[in-house]
């Protein structure tokens, strides 16, 4: 994506052009009469719907609740995942216990367990957040494990040699050295947390973007459904970009972190 020629600014402009074309194309297609307004409401109609939601305050309640659930679940998964990952590295017993659970549990579609978790915990936020933790924790654990395993032995030896105590060794040496890998795990976990949050809201109803979309869909209000898609796309995009930004800030000392990530 690096332009070597003189027209760099033209390539810089390209994203706006292409997204602008997408929106104009959407508007034009919707107005051309090929699709009914139910199948494809015009972009302007959808924007108007979002504006109405913003004025009534529903927008902030729904987006706020979805964000709150995703982020709380994500944070719990992040902290617990790092703790389990480090524990598995340091203690053979913990490793023996968690290793098969992870190798079997990671590739499973955990969302299938949602009806069971609803049965146990009811239709509350605690169910949604538990599901998010259950899904988002696996990439964090495996990334942490790989990260701490690959910490340079010599770093640990020299720190020990200089009289660093175990707790300090963890905080000062091992976790920072494993951070790039752990952060990659977190970057995988965050979109998963949002996918699960939206599915849980759709299935369990109530407030939140997912719940609002299902309500709109039940009333054949397709502008409401598309408004939900636009909202969730914006929220997802902002969160993923924010993570990439934090990564660059936090890991500025690490050479690899300066390379562009996949997205």
């Amino acid at each position, binding site marked *: 994506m690096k332009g070597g020629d003189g027209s760099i600014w033209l390539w810089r402009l390209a994203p706006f052009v292409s997204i602008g074309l997408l929106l104009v194309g959407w508007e034009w297609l919707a107005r051309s009469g090929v699709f009914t307004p139910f199948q494809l409401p015009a972009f302007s109609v959808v924007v108007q719907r979002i504006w109405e939601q913003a004025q009534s305050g529903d927008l902030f309640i729904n987006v706020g609740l979805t964000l709150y659930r995703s982020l709380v679940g994500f944070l719990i998964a992040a902290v617990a995942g790092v703790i389990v990952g480090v524990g598995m590295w340091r203690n053979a017993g913990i490793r023996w216990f968690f*290793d098969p659970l992870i190798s079997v549990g990671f590739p499973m579609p955990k969302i299938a367990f949602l009806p*069971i978790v609803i049965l146990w915990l009811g239709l509350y936020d605690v169910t949604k957040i538990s599901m998010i933790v259950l899904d988002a924790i696996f990439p964090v654990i495996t990334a942490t494990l790989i990260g701490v395993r690959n910490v340079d032995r010599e770093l640990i030896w020299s720190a020990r040699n200089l009289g660093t105590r175990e707790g300090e060794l963890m905080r000062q040496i091992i976790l920072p050295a494993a951070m790039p890998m752990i952060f990659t795990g977190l970057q995988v976990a965050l979109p998963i947390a949002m996918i699960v949050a939206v599915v849980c809201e759709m299935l369990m109803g109530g407030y939140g973007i997912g719940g609002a979309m299902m309500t709109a*869909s039940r009333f054949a209000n397709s502008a409401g459904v598309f408004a939900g898609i636009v909202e969730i*796309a914006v929220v997802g995009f902002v969160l993923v970009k924010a993570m990439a930004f934090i990564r660059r800030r936090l890991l500025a000392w690490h050479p690899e972190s300066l390379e562009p990530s996949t997205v």
Partner: protein
Amino acid sequence: MTDATAPAPSPAGAVTGALIRGLTRYAPLIILAVLWEVVARLGLVSGSSLPALSSVAAAWVDLLRSGDLLANTWASLYRGGAGLALAIVIGTALGVFMAWSRPVNALIGPIVELFYPMPKSALIPVTVIWLGFGDGSKILLIFLGCMLPVTIGAFNGARSADRTLVWSARSLGAGRLRMLRDVVLPSALPELLGGIRTALALTFILLVSSELIVARAGLGYLIGYLGADGNYESMFAVVLTVAFLGFAADRLYQMFAARVLRWQQ
């Protein structure tokens, strides 16, 4: 069998060794399963929130005999397979095309980047609006949800194709199509296969969620139906079946990917 464990490593001895190693490795799962059975049998939790593992197994056999399990598994696998296959074909083509041509990348790249982080489950109600409650909406959902990880895998892989390889192929007179087939695609393969693995996991998530939310057939539908009916033994049986299918699909795929990439060693 006793003299099979002679000093020389006989095949039977190797099998026993592998069995013991496997048992030690997966012992935590067996312990959890036993604990589940004991907790349920002793009545420490109510039977409706945790039916005993043995009754879940019995319910699974019943579901298999009645044909419900097979019919719904088939419905789910058909949807998942069709959606994923479409995503792989079109996603790969799009990714390679983006790596191949700078204007295409400038035009499509930002759209891919915009939609890639979107929680794909948000598309469930839209696909229902477009195609209704049947197979079509699930296939479209899985196709749309799984295409971008494949595209990004193919794009990153094809872009990183070794420049010197591309130049030598060109100087040896390879045409554009031959170069695509013999140089670019093989070098894109490792990243592409990684993208497809992500897509495979997404397939199961989207399949089960969309079937739980709106469907008249499929494993997700069966779970919701049995749960609403209060038939919890059977519901647990189907949930475990789905979990196992997801796990088995990933394992099989990894074996396949390792085979395909053997030339890389």
